């Protein structure tokens, strides 16, 4: 029985081709119907296949279909093939579902933009690449999708390329990602070299035979893969491109730089969990980098004034959580947080976009405030998303974040330190998110008079996706209620055929929970985190609603710390001094000295010498027939004379 997996990425590809080839010839209505329709069809087809998958028994929930052979070359054989299992099913539904909502929202947001058709063309290409990435059945096709989303990210960050900062941000994203891709590619070489294949199923089957547990080779391969993930998913040390990526249109930030593309690294690690589990050292590195990034980005987010930048650092921080989950071998918890994060972070970005839209482009929170009255739908959905990301019980973010925190505490790979830093970061998250909420929607209206007159709620086409995402941000977590709260943790169970029983989670945890011993710990930790989060929300309320002067006083007394955080730890400047400046110096040396003086000098010198010699010889060729004849005659006479008189 054929499931026609190919159709899922094919619809957006067709949409891309139609809109791209007929760019400028279609009116806006047709462009939006084609673009949204393509993604909508992908979502529906993904949904149908998801139910097909559910109908299969849990152990055989793997659909692999080969479309055609792509590279047949001796030992090296790569197919364009697609793999649909619970993991890719989740990703497909998130990508196409959230993608569809953001497409709808974009119709309203980009309405007056002159690059309307171009925008939707890129967006469809992105969805196509992303679906290829998550559906690929081998590493190479995944890499194609990986590069494709990178390209679309570049194109869409630099969408308003007339603006110098936007064009620069696009280039920065592309170049930083290149470093990660380099690592990813080297990792693939090691995998192919060792296992002789790039197909996921083959590689994971062979891995235990060719790699020794914890050996250098598998550690190197997984570390290189992780380097690729740090580039795409904006982790230390390659996260610097994501805050700048906010130069793109806001729906793009929501789709690419919050909900989908940046989670590709998490997906890749979850997909390769068989390899990562064989390299405990790598897992440790992943967990440490993840938790460090989470804390680092959260502290920066505390002080930023640009509404989108706060959200960008928040995204980096939440991605750090997902890597913590991967690092403590709780891969399904990571994917769970990926999914809930896609809902509430997309919602936050779209809400921010709605605010920016209404304020005609103002992004600085110091010039917002009091928007609650003017934009009720935006406010309520934004509030839901903020509560979700803060981890208030009952909303999706609570379940996934708590799952990660619990696993980082209880897993064999975890430790109390990771848990503690994660918890502290959760407090910071609650604080800066409510700071953002209060500064934007509460207090006095600080925008200028002109903007104040234009305040309006966004059109239906923008608020409807907000509402749907708001509902998802609430209920998205209910598929993964932990056992301890009386749920079945269906999400983890659903992913079990892919992830295996790495957690020893399912049954064992339930036994532990019922025996009440470890379960008590889990409940206690949960309680601690909820209390601390509520406390930091109250703190934000005091500082930014009740007593704003106090916030300024605190800022003044901690001005040194504030300056460092506001300057984002000066990492960009550090990279500039340590990497970029020496590189530019080296390039200048190669250009001005090696190329211009050495190579050009050598060539020009050679040419000059030959030229000088020819200057002496040139007059011989006078073009005068009679002179030639005379010389010819003299020659004949000389030769004859030589033979006669010798």
């Amino acid at each position, binding site marked *: 029985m054929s499931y026609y997996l190919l159709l899922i990425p094919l619809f957006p590809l067709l949409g891309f081709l139609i809109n791209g080839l007929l760019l400028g010839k279609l009116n806006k209505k047709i462009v939006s119907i084609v673009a949204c329709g393509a993604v909508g069809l992908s979502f529906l087809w993904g949904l149908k296949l998801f139910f097909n998958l559910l109908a299969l028994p849990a152990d055989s929930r793997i659909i692999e279909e080969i479309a055609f052979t792509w590279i047949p070359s001796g030992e090296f054989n790569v197919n364009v093939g697609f793999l649909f299992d619970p993991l890719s099913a989740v990703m497909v539904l998130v990508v196409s579902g959230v993608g569809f909502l953001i497409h709808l929202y974009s119709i309203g947001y980009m309405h007056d933009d002159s690059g309307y058709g171009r925008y939707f063309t890129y967006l469809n290409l992105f969805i196509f690449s992303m679906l290829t990435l998550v559906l690929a059945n081998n590493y190479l096709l995944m890499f194609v999708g990986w590069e494709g989303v990178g390209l679309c990210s570049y194109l869409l960050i630099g969408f308003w390329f007339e603006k110098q900062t936007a064009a620069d941000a696009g280039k920065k994203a592309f170049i930083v990602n290149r470093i990660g891709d380099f690592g990813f590619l080297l990792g693939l070489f090691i995998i192919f070299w060792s296992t002789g294949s790039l197909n996921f199923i083959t590689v994971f089957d062979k891995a235990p035979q060719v790699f020794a547990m914890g050996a250098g080779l598998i550690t190197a391969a997984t570390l290189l893969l992780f380097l690729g993930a740090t580039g795409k998913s904006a982790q230390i040390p390659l996260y610097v491109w994501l805050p700048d990526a906010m130069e793109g249109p806001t729906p793009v930030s929501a789709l690419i730089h919050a909900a989908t593309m940046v989670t590709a690294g998490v997906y890749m690690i979850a997909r390769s969990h068989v390899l990562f589990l064989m390299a405990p050292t790598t897992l440790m590195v992943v967990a440490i980098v993840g938790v460090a990034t989470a804390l680092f980005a959260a502290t920066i987010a505390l002080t930023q004034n640009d509404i989108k930048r706060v959200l960008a650092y928040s995204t980096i921080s939440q991605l750090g959580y997902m890597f913590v989950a991967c690092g403590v071998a709780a891969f399904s918890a990571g994917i769970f947080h990926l999914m809930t994060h896609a809902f509430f972070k997309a919602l936050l970005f779209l809400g921010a976009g709605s605010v920016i839209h209404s304020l005609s482009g103002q992004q600085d929170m110091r010039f917002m405030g009091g928007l609650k009255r003017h934009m009720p739908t935006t406010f309520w959905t934004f509030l839901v998303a903020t509560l979700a990301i803060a981890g208030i019980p009952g909303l999706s973010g609570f379940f996934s974040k708590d799952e990660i925190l619990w696993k980082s505490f209880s897993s064999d790979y975890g430790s109390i330190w990771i848990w503690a830093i994660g918890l502290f970061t959760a407090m910071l998250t609650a604080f800066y998110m409510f700071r953002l909420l209060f500064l934007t929607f509460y207090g006095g209206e600080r925008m200028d008079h002109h903007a104040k007159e234009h305040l309006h709620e966004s059109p239906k086409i923008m608020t409807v996706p907000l509402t749907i995402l708001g509902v998802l941000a609430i209920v998205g977590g209910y598929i993964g209620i932990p056992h301890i709260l009386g749920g079945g943790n269906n999400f983890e169970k659903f992913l079990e055929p892919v992830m295996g029983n790495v957690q020893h989670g399912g049954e064992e945890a339930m036994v532990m929970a019922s025996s009440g011993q470890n379960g008590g710990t889990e409940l206690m930790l949960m309680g601690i985190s909820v209390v601390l989060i509520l406390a930091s929300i109250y703190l934000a309320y005091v500082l930014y609603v009740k007593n704003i002067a106090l916030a300024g006083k605190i800022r003044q007394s901690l001005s040194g710390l504030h300056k460092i955080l506001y300057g984002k730890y000066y990492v960009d400047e550090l990279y500039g001094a340590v990497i970029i400046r020496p590189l530019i110096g080296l390039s200048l040396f190669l250009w001005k000295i090696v190329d211009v003086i050495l190579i050009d000098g050598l060539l020009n010198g050679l040419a000059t010498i030959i030229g000088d010699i020819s200057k002496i010889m040139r007059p011989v060729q006078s073009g005068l027939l*009679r002179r030639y004849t005379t010389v010819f005659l003299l020659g004949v006479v000389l030769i004859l004379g030589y033979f006669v008189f010798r």
Partner: protein
Amino acid sequence: MVPMPYYLIVGAVLFVIGIAGVILSRNLIIMFMSIELMLNAANLTIITFSRFLNLMDGHVFVFLIMAVAAAEAAVGLAIIIMLFRNRETIDADKFNLLKW
């Protein structure tokens, strides 16, 4: 019968006149005629040796040279006419474009 050196001297004189014509004259027609003169000087020398040594090979050569000279004259004159049509001169020194 006229002795052989006479013939050879006439041939040599003709050849030198031809060379002088080519080198000294700037008129293409005259240069062309001088070339013909040199050809016939050579012809005369060959036929002289052929006659006095009783060998018939020389006759054959001379006929061949005459035929070639006739063909060459046709081609050469055609070229000169075309040159004149294009540049309205047949001064050989004016055709000196083919140089550095």
